[in-house]
């Protein structure tokens, strides 16, 4: 009855097509929605980036002028570098701090499930309010400053806590923590424990065994976590807007200004396309480099 019982060599193409037709029919509504809601808008974005805004009129002659001005103007180059630097720092910090936590849950914790629930509960509050909580903590009259002052430890509030790249990094590292813990935990959990015993039996000390067995085997989780954090945080809007200040402004804030205030959609579109390409390029090269580095350790 099932088409799986027919060996592919015997199944004739028309019969295969007829057997699979319901499958394509089932798949098509989702594909139609995603083409309309994802492929079409992205194509329109690229198209807009090739046009030009002239006052309130849109000139639809194809030009690379938007790209030229995105790439040639120093403030925008600085913006790209800053966004990528901030997101890289966020990714490194989040993964580095989450790794021991995930390791603990995978190898040491007794009630694993309870730990996983405990680790995810704080992330069911509103994202906006989780980010805003850091503004309350780091602000001029915030929790840290008012706490230290009421304890008599400082006389005047610290001004350097908020509105800089560092406050953006701390806030994002907090907001994205589960995206690091969960993939790393899954990859650690999958490791065959007998491999660890074998390494120990063959004389590897704990550190060597970790570097040569555990770390390389958990690499898919690390890479997955890094990509899952790096890509969306380069485009984060809320965090730089709330805790970044002028020195912590990132790509999304500038794209928003082009779309919502200045009204230069072609330029905003070009900014968005260039940032997607830059982020994609950085991600690809980082993943390749990470794989090569681990291959060498092994």
């Amino acid at each position: 009855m099932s088409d799986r019982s027919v060996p592919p060599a015997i199944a004739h193409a028309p019969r295969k097509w007829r057997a699979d037709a319901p499958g394509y029919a089932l798949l098509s509504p989702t594909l139609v929605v995603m083409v309309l809601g994802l492929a079409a808008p992205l194509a329109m974005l690229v198209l807009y980036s090739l046009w030009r805004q002239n006052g309130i009129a849109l000139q639809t002659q194809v030009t690379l002028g938007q790209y030229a001005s995105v790439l040639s103007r120093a403030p925008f180059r600085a913006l790209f570098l800053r966004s990528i630097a901030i997101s890289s720092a966020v990714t490194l910090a989040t993964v580095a701090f989450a790794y021991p936590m995930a390791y603990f849950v995978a190898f040491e914790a007794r009630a694993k499930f309870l730990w996983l629930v405990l680790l995810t509960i704080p992330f069911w509050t509103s994202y906006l309010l989780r980010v805003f909580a850091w503004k309350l903590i780091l602000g001029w009259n915030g929790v840290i400053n008012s706490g230290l002052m009421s304890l008599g430890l400082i006389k005047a509030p610290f001004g350097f806590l908020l509105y800089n790249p560092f406050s953006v990094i701390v806030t994002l590292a907090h907001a994205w923590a589960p995206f690091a813990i969960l993939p790393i935990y899954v990859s650690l959990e999958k490791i065959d424990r007998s491999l660890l015993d074998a390494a120990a039996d063959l004389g590897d000390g704990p550190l060597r065994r970790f570097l040569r067995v555990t770390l390389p085997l958990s690499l898919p989780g690390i890479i997955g976590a890094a990509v899952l954090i790096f890509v969306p945080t380069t485009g984060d809007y809320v965090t730089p807007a709330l805790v970044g200040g002028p020195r912590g402004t990132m790509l999304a804030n500038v794209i928003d200004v082009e779309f919502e205030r200045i009204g230069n959609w072609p330029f905003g579109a070009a900014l968005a396309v260039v940032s997607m390409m830059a982020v994609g390029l950085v991600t690809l090269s980082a993943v390749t480099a990470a794989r090569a580095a681990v291959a060498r350790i092994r």
Partner: protein
Amino acid sequence: MSASAKLASMKPPGLFVYAILYLAFLYVPVLFLPLFSFNDSAFVSFPLAGFTLRWYRAMLADGALGEALANSLKVGAVAAISATLLGLAAARALTRYRLKGTSTVLGFVSLPLFIPDIVLGISLLILVNALSTPLSLSSVIFGHIVLCVPFALAVLLSRLEGFDPSLEEASRDLGETAWMTFLRVTLPLALPGIVASLLLAFIVSFDEFLIAYFLAGTDATLPIYIWGELRFPAKLPIVLALGAAILVVTCLLVLVAEWLRNLGRARTTPLAVGA
């Protein structure tokens, strides 16, 4: 026995302490929201001024908040149901049939997970604008469906992947119609996945700010309302009360979802073992 003893001897010391500190890092910032929502002062700073429920009373009396909440519930429900239906059909197609281009389809549908929300938001804004349709909750719903389909598909694929097709064949061989087979065999087996997908998609939509911000026009969803209120220091404690309420409700939802998932697992485990 000896293996676990050997593993135990290799445990790095102090990892438990680290885990507790890490939990504190995750929890303390979030717990400031409920703490200051009960504080009898419009300013969020120490020392605490005293206990009050007035911010909660003000929250319940706020009409714009109620409207935004109703909008968010509507958008979340429609987006979650649509994304789950689309995800279910696609997951069924991809697991039951061997279609050409399966990995391409999966990659394409998962794209929203790898595109920053800002890019999705402005792209959809350009599209809606080009179609000269007014911005409204409908455009937000459309954007949220696109955003939620990859989540729904991932959950449902993992549920349907281990699915034994011989169960459906047996049902048909025993004389059930295709429709009854679907109702009595396929649907019950997929149900925990469907519930998980509905909840996850709803939570993603309910919390989504940036896409809604570009597409909502004059209708505010709850995150858009919160974003607006964050600019007014006087209204801040009300927003904190709202945040605490959201935290409690979503925690309850997550616990219910986990309980349902375990229920589903307990019931289907014997089948999985037999397969």
